[in-house]
C-alpha cells in the first residue's frame, strides 16, 4: 500500500513523489488534497494532489521541506511505503470556462496550482500563470506549467530568472494589459493576502487555496478553522478554496504560528 513508484528532485528542497493509491487516483479532482503520515510516530499533514493517473493507479505529490514531517517524507525513496495516505479530501475546485484566468503561485503553492491550471485550460480558459520565487533555483514546475498555460510569467526577488519583482507585480502587469475574469492564488498566506488586496482593488473575483494547520482533515477537530466573511469555516471540509476577498488573512497568519516553537524544537529529529 502507498508505495512510492518514482521520485524526482526539483531542487534541494523540493521533491516530487509518485505514489500508488488506486482508489484516490480514481476519485480525485483538481483541488483535492490528501493527509499523509510518515512513521508510527508521524504527524498527519495535508498535501495537495498535484496530478493523478487513474489507469496506473498513482497520484503525484510535490513536497517542499519545511518541517519534520515534510523532511521525513522527502527522504523516502522508490519502493518505500508511506505509512498512511488518506483522501481525496476537501472540495474540488470549481472549474468552468470563466474567460481569462490568472493563476498565481508562490513557494509551496506552485505544486497544488498545477492541476488547477491544467483543469482550467482543459475547460477552455485563457490561462496566464504567474510563478514567484526568491531566486532562480527555487522556481519549480515551470515546464509543466507551460504545457497548460497560454503564458507563464516568472517573478524572482533577485531577478535571477524571469522578471525582478513580487508576484503582485506580475499579476498587475496582466491586469493593466487585458481583462481578467478570475484570479486563482496559492502560496504562503502572506502572499495570498497581498494578491487578494490587489485584485480587490481591481474588483477581480479571486479564489485562494488555504493551507492551514490540520489534524484529521475530515472536519473532526477544528484545528483548520478560519474566518471567512465573518463566519468560522473549516478549511478541510468547507475549503480549501475560498473567496479570497472574504478571508481574514491576518487571523490565518496568526493561527499558522500556533506551534512555531514546538515545531522548531522538533527539528533535531531530522537534522
Amino acid at each position, binding site marked *: 500500500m502507498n508505495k512510492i513508484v518514482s521520485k524526482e528532485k526539483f531542487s534541494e528542497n523540493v521533491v516530487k513523489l509518485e505514489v500508488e493509491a488506486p482508489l484516490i487516483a480514481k*476519485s480525485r479532482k483538481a483541488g483535492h488534497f490528501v493527509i499523509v503520515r510518515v512513521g508510527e*510516530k508521524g*504527524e498527519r499533514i495535508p498535501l495537495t494532489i498535484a496530478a493523478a493517473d487513474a489507469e496506473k493507479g498513482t497520484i503525484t505529490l510535490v513536497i517542499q521541506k519545511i518541517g519534520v514531517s515534510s523532511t521525513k517524507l522527502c527522504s523516502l525513496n522508490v519502493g518505500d511505503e508511506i505509512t498512511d495516505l488518506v483522501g481525496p479530501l476537501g472540495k474540488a475546485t470549481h472549474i468552468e470556462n470563466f474567460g481569462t484566468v490568472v493563476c498565481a503561485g508562490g513557494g509551496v503553492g506552485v505544486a497544488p496550482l498545477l492541476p488547477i491550471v491544467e483543469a482550467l485550460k482543459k475547460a477552455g480558459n485563457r490561462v496566464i500563470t504567474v510563478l514567484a520565487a526568491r531566486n532562480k533555483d527555487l522556481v519549480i514546475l515551470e515546464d509543466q506549467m507551460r504545457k497548460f498555460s497560454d503564458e507563464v510569467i516568472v517573478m524572482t526577488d533577485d531577478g535571477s530568472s524571469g522578471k525582478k519583482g513580487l508576484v503582485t507585480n506580475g499579476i498587475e502587469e496582466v491586469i493593466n494589459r487585458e481583462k481578467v475574469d478570475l484570479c486563482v492564488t496559492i502560496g504562503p498566506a502572506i502572499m495570498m493576502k497581498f494578491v487578494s488586496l490587489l485584485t480587490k482593488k481591481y474588483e477581480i473575483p479571486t479564489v485562494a487555496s488555504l493551507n492551514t494547520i490540520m489534524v484529521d482533515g475530515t472536519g*473532526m477537530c477544528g484545528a483548520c478553522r478560519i*474566518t471567512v466573511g465573518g463566519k468560522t469555516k473549516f478549511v478541510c471540509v468547507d475549503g480549501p478554496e475560498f473567496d479570497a476577498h472574504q478571508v481574514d488573512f491576518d487571523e490565518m497568519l496568526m*493561527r499558522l504560528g500556533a506551534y512555531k516553537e514546538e515545531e522548531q524544537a*522538533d527539528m533535531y529529529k531530522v537534522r
Partner: protein
Amino acid sequence: MAADRNVAWREDLRKTMSNKERTSIPRVQMNELNAGYRARVREEVNQGLTKEQALVEAKRCLDCPNPTCMQGCPVSINIPGFIKNIERGEILEAAKVLKETSALPAVCGRVCPQEKQCESQCFYKQKLKKEAVAIGYLERFAADYERDSGHVSVPEIKEKNGMKIAVVGSGPAGLSFAGDMAKKGYSVTVFEALHEIGGVLKYGIPEFRLPNRVVDVEIDNLSKMGVLFMKDCIVGKTISVKDLENEGFKGVFVASGAGLPRFMNISGENLIGIMSSNEYLTRVNLMDASNPESDTPIYKGHNVAVIGGGNTAMDSVRTALRLGADRAMIVYRRSEEEMPARLEEVKHAKEEGVEFLTLHNPIEYIGDEKGRVTKMRLQKMELGEPDASGRRSPIEIPGAIEEIDVDEVIVSVGVSPNPLIPNSVEGLEVTPKGTIVVNEGMQSSIPMLFAGGDIVRGGATVILAMGDGRSAAAAMDLYLKK
C-alpha cells in the same frame, strides 16, 4: 429470563444466605490509584475489583424475581444472570451471559453511566434507599477476568453465506455490528477514515479511563472471526456507497458517529490556544502528542479552562492535569447537578484537583500581541425554571462578569453528526440536525443502507451505539434473507 432464574443452582444459591445478611453487606469500593499520583500519569485510575471483592459484591444482589435493573439497561443485559454466576464462582460463565447481549462488556463496564441506568433502577436504590449493587464494576470484573484468563471464547461462526457487507466507521456501533454479522456468516469489511480502529474509544476516551489494550482485544477478536479492516478509507470520498454496491456489497451499515465539534461563536474563539476537545484529545490520544517521540505538537497549558460538563469535558480537563497544568478548571453554565458527565468522572476530577466553575459562561476571550489567549471573560449565571430538556436553565446575573487568566481553553460544548455520508448519498433522508433517519430496524430511506450509533442519535453513549449495531445486524440479516 424467569426460566433461567429457576434453574436448580440459582434456587440453591439464593438459599445459601438470607436477604437480611445480603443487604447488610456494604457496597464494594473500587480500587483506585491514589489521586495525587494518578493526576500526573496516564495509568488507568480504576484498578478493577479483586476476585474476593467481586464474590462478596455479587452476594449483595438479591436475584430479584422482577429485576428492575434490567429495565434500566438500554440493552437489557441479563444482570442477575451474570452476577449470580460470579457469586457461584463461574466467572467465565458470567462473561458468556454478558456477551449474549453486549458485544463490548469490558468497555461498557468502564464507561456506561451506570448511576443513571441499571444501578439507578436497582432494588437497593429504589426500595431500600441504599447504595445500588455495583453492577458496572462486576460487569468489568467478569469481562476482564475472561480476557486475562486466556480463555476468551471465540464465538461460533455460521458457514459463510457468500454475501459481502460494508461497515462505515469503527466505533462501538460499527464493531458490534461487524461481530454479529460475521457470526451470521457474512463477509464483513469495516472502512475507517482514521489510521486507527476504534472510533471515539481510541481517539476520544483517554487511556486513564479506557486503556487501548481493552479495545484492541475486541478488535483482534473480530479479526480472528474474519472481519476485514480497511483503515485510511473514507466512504463518500475515497470510495462511494455506489462503488461499494458495484463491488458486490449487499448491505452497508453507517456508523460514522457524531464527530464534528461545536464552537460557541463568541469573540476571540479563534485565538491560539483555544481548541475543541476533539482536537485536544485527538492530539493526545490518537497522535500521542505528549510523547516527545511523536511529531505532533501539543501546547501544555498552565492555566487551562475546559468549557462544558460532559464526559468529554471531564476527559479533557483531566488530560490537562496529566500534561502538567497548574490550574485545570471546568467552566459550566449550569450547576453540578445538571452535568451530563458520569458521576464517577466528576468525583475523580475533583479528587485530582480540578476546579469547578459552575454557573459560569464564557462570553469573550482576550489575547496577546501574538494572538495567544491570555484571559477569558465569564458571565455568572443562576438557575431559572426547568427548560425543555427538564434541566433548570441558567440565566445571566446582570453585570456579574469575571475575568480570569488562561493560556489554554478547550471547548467541549457538544458535537454534530458527521455530514460526509449524508452529503454523499443521494436520496438519503436526514433530519434538520443532520442525523440519518431510520426505522425501528435501523434501516434508512435507502433499503440496503442501515445506520446506528451517534450518526442516528447525535452525541449519545457507547452502550446505545453498541445496541444499535446489534439491532441493525439482526434487521439487515432478515432483510437480506427475504
